[in-house]
């Protein structure tokens, strides 16, 4: 539970370890008692480091404004109240924001995963001229900070008259080098014998991708999809820039609306709003986590 909370709550989770089930297993066998204690201590520290802010967010949502500002701070709300939730919900059209966030995340991540799965296949298994250079280009794209591309993207989107539309939010982020790179590395670790067997059985590229590579790479693909979903769900700057009206805004902007520029922030309401945002991702993560574990186990038996 603790580890799920941490990944769901973080905006940028650490890179997933996709291919290490066997090695950790072996190390585990040889680990001494001291090593094990140290590992557990480290784990507890991580849980505290990541769990405390999450706990603080949840408890803050149930406190009265006076209690939030009281010193010393209280760990458990002394007069728990639900007042912040309707207050947050009614301050901005959160219902509409939910729909927008769902649409943007579903299509945004859908495209991103599709392009990552297919282009990684091409880079890993196809032979074509200049492959190495194209891959270098991909790596170069990986290095460009997002902030640099914002203005050019804005101008392009504006010329296409896509300002304040779903496609304006989704398309510029539909294909990201990161996914193609990540999956390509994973594909290359797949046993070539299986590929060869598939080819002998007469499978073409599409069939190989759909029936062989994708099931084998499921843990990596699901992990990447989760990362992508969390990133799209939490994205703030691009949707803010490319949309103008309340009707097109997404959840993180809704939270921002609850903050106050030059005055006192009602943190209880902000925390309640944050819970609105975190909850769906948490559920998705709990659901999808199964597949990561399944995939790893399946791969281990085969390998």
């Amino acid at each position: 539970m603790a580890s799920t909370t941490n990944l769901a709550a973080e905006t940028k989770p650490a890179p997933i370890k996709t291919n290490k089930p066997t090695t950790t297993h072996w190390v585990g066998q040889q680990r001494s008692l001291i090593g094990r204690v140290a590992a557990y201590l480290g784990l507890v520290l991580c849980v505290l480091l990541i769990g405390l802010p999450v706990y603080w967010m949840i408890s803050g949502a149930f406190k009265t404004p006076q209690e939030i500002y009281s010193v010393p701070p209280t760990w458990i709300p002394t007069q728990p109240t639900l007042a912040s939730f309707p207050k947050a919900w009614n301050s901005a059209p959160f219902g509409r924001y939910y729909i927008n966030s769902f649409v943007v995340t579903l299509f945004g991540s859908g495209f991103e995963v599709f392009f990552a799965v297919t282009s990684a296949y091409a880079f890993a298994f196809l032979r074509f001229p200049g492959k190495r250079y194209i891959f270098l280009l991909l790596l170069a794209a990986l290095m460009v900070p997002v902030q640099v591309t914002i203005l050019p993207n804005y101008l392009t989107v504006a010329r296409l008259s896509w300002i304040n539309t779903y496609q304006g939010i989704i398309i510029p982020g539909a294909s990201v080098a990161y996914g193609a790179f990540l999956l390509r590395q994973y594909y290359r670790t797949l046993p070539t014998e299986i590929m060869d067997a598939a080819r002998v059985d007469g499978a073409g590229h599409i069939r190989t991708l759909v029936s062989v590579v994708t099931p084998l790479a499921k843990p990596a693909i699901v992990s990447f999809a989760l990362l992508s979903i969390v990133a799209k769900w939490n994205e703030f700057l691009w949707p803010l820039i490319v949309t103008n009206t309340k009707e097109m805004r997404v959840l993180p902007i809704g939270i921002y609306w609850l903050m106050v520029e030059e005055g006192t922030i009602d943190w209880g309401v902000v925390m309640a709003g944050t819970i609105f945002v975190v909850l769906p991702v948490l559920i998705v993560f709990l659901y999808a986590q199964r597949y990561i574990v399944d995939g790893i186990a399946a791969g281990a038996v085969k390998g």
Partner: protein
Amino acid sequence: MPEKTISRRTLLKGMTVGAGVLALAGCTAPVAPGPAAPAGDAAAPAQEAVTILFWSSFTGKNGETETELVKRFNESQSDVVIDYQFQGSYEETAQKVTAALQAGTAPDISLLSDVWWFKFYLNQTLLPLDDLLNAQGVDVNDYQDSLINEGVRQGVHYWIPFARSTPLFYYNKEKWAAAGLPDRGPETWDEFMEWAPNLLEMEGEEMKTAAFTHPDGASYIAWLFQPVTWQWGGKYSDPDFTMHMTDELTVAAGQFYKDTVHTYKWARPSKDVQADFIGGLTAAAMMSTGSMGGIKANATFEFGTAFLPKKEYFGCCTGGAGLAILSRTPAEKQAPAMQYIAYASSPESTAFWSQNTGYMPVRKSALDLPEMQTYFETYPQFKTAVDQLPLTQPQDSARVFVPNGDQIIGKGLERITVQAEEVAAVFAEVQATLESEAQPVVEALRAIEG
């Protein structure tokens, strides 16, 4: 008009059921400025209404109040429809306007903060407003002088005050009483020097309650220190961008800030001065007038407000944001755009806006309105802020007109208050940075203004 006397606290309560603002709107007749009388639905307009795109930055309570203001305007007449769009913080709004100007998607009216409007003026993307003001019959002399004059270049108005705030001295009355002090702010910093040791509460070696608290690093320290330089007789700069950070009196003011923390040890820097004040961690602080509503709603003690303390002189600056029309706005939309600006800064609107947000009423005649007078009686802390307003002056060019000037000065001040670095040396560095950053501005200005 019952909504004028409603207190912030009551209104916040009303919002918990989510219908507060709507309910208010329902029971209120729209307030119309000047000649534009409220037009009934029966009198349908012959021509179609003009839609004016308006970008703004207010969130939370302030955002809801502005939404309400726009709604009232739209309902008060049938020729102009304001399409009000929230665009993020002051910074994000300004950056988005910059991008949108290039893409041809810019709004007609934009809210621009004190440190941003000048950049748009320099790029010649703001419309001169005097003819439009005259056409609307707006009396510019009725605006608070220090506020309206800040948006004037070479006798031409570009930036109309809307959400303006000033620094103010806040004190915790309980701690004042416990220290046996009279129920008023200190007249001078020297007087506060005498009071401060009594206000300080120590727990062993650790400071429990500070007598005074400085913001740390966050952008406001350069704003709150601005009046202190004037009180000492110094300044950040002249209007022509000659920097004065290294002047003896400016350095002396900086030395005072440093001493309060490191020599007298009754002040400390804090990440969130407001939270400290509300939590009772500081007996007094300088904060924005815009913070008053939140303090009133959240503090569990009585608080008082006072003019800023004097040293050699009195000094207090203005801040906040105003409204401007972008020069790309087509001719047929300019007058309607100004119609909204005139409405939003009219005495009635500014009274409504200031009572709900804590920003200053920008019009002199707003103070004589009965709803404002009643409000003053129930809320004397706010009256102090308004009384101080005529004594304020626009900020020095170094903070508001030099790109990033606020941060350059703010970071320097943080080095003094937090890291106890040598004041003269830090200010010399700050001055050098400001001078090089100001260079392009000076050149651009010469090209425009001659």
